[in-house]
């Protein structure tokens, strides 16, 4: 498995001070459950960084993004950080309206999986 990349994060509130980005090749070859696990950890880090809380405190299943504290600017920041890190396309409106961070993880897992799976799960960059 290829080593993960790390992205510098200067915010002191992040537990490790940096966000670890899972390797795309590893994501593509992992099974769905493992890929979801890897992306859940990554999304927790990104959300923790943007929100200024420790990743393990991020509730990925029980709250909509807005209830996590993701407003429009934080959502835009999150969108661009994840697009740059994972080379994916995310829809800002869908990100902001997601019922939970798990929906975002699921969207990413679909895009970053095997090609045939991604073709069925692609989320357009802009829907309107």
């Amino acid at each position, binding site marked *: 498995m290829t080593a993960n990349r790390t992205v510098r994060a*200067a*915010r002191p509130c992040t537990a490790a001070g940096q966000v670890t980005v899972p390797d795309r090749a590893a994501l593509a070859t992992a099974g769905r459950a493992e890929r979801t696990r890897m992306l859940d950890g990554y999304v927790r880090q990104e959300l923790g960084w*943007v*929100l200024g*809380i420790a990743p393990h*405190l991020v*509730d990925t299943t029980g*709250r*909509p993004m807005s*209830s*996590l*504290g993701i*407003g*429009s*600017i*934080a*959502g*835009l*920041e999150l*969108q*661009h*950080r994840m697009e740059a890190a994972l080379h994916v396309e995310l*829809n*800002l*409106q869908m990100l*902001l309206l997601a019922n939970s961070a798990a929906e975002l993880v699921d969207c990413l897992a679909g895009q970053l999986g095997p090609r045939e799976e991604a073709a069925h799960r692609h989320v357009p960059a*802009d*829907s*309107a």
Partner: protein
Amino acid sequence: MTSTIAQGTHPVADPSGSLAGEYTVALGRLDLWLVRPPEERAAGLDCSELDEGERRRAASFIRPADGLLYAAAHVALRRLLGRYTGIAPQDVRFVREPCPGCGGAHGRPAVAAAPLHFSLSHSSGVALVGVAAVPLGVDVERLPRPEAVEVCTPALHPDEQAELAAAGDAQRGPLFGRIWTRKEAFLKGIGTGLSRSPAEDYLGVDTTRHPSGWTVVDVPCDDTHAAAVAVRGAAPLSVNVRRLAQEWLGAGGGTCADPTDQGAADPPPTTPDIPGERSPEPFTTALAC
């Protein structure tokens, strides 16, 4: 066109008091209400008029302060709209206008069977409510961190990006805040929200290049936030910016049926600086109840 309301002390208003005549919706008139939550919910926030969905949502925030702000903003919204429409706050029924893109029921929020338009925004301790006779959008945002500005700037219109690149370090955050709140207010006004790309429309420094058919107004609120409103059509004849008295968010605050003039001193009126064909009126001054 984009204008800036002159910085000044916004009058503090308690709508349960002597302002019954101020809840008027008329062409050329724009009312803006700045809301701050009470420091402690138990001490000053009456959520009894919120519906089940609003209460559930208020309880869902991971940060208690966000939930308190959400609840305060929605208590204020219901009570204000109740005043404008004559409907009891708990009976105000919200609907969605058709989406301008697909016609689905997820466009601008509206009050059922009421001849007014409203918009609500809240961010980090401040909420802003706008009420007008024409479609409008408001946005308030805490000024972003420099790292956030750096990451988010490429999403903007190319000419907005250039203006941010040319700004000094100290000015970049406030400029981004102004551009973003103008943009989001405009996108809320036209009903697309952020499904329309933030790069599509120019809302930067050159106000003559702003989207035609709309008036965008910067609303100063405090040193840590940017705020803006976009209203369809020409510049409003009057823009009334008032700060809602926190007491009005408490029990009985929205149900005072017999407003009395308990006139506290009026704060100095400030005047919106809105260039255009028509001269705006001074801010409406208000009395604290």
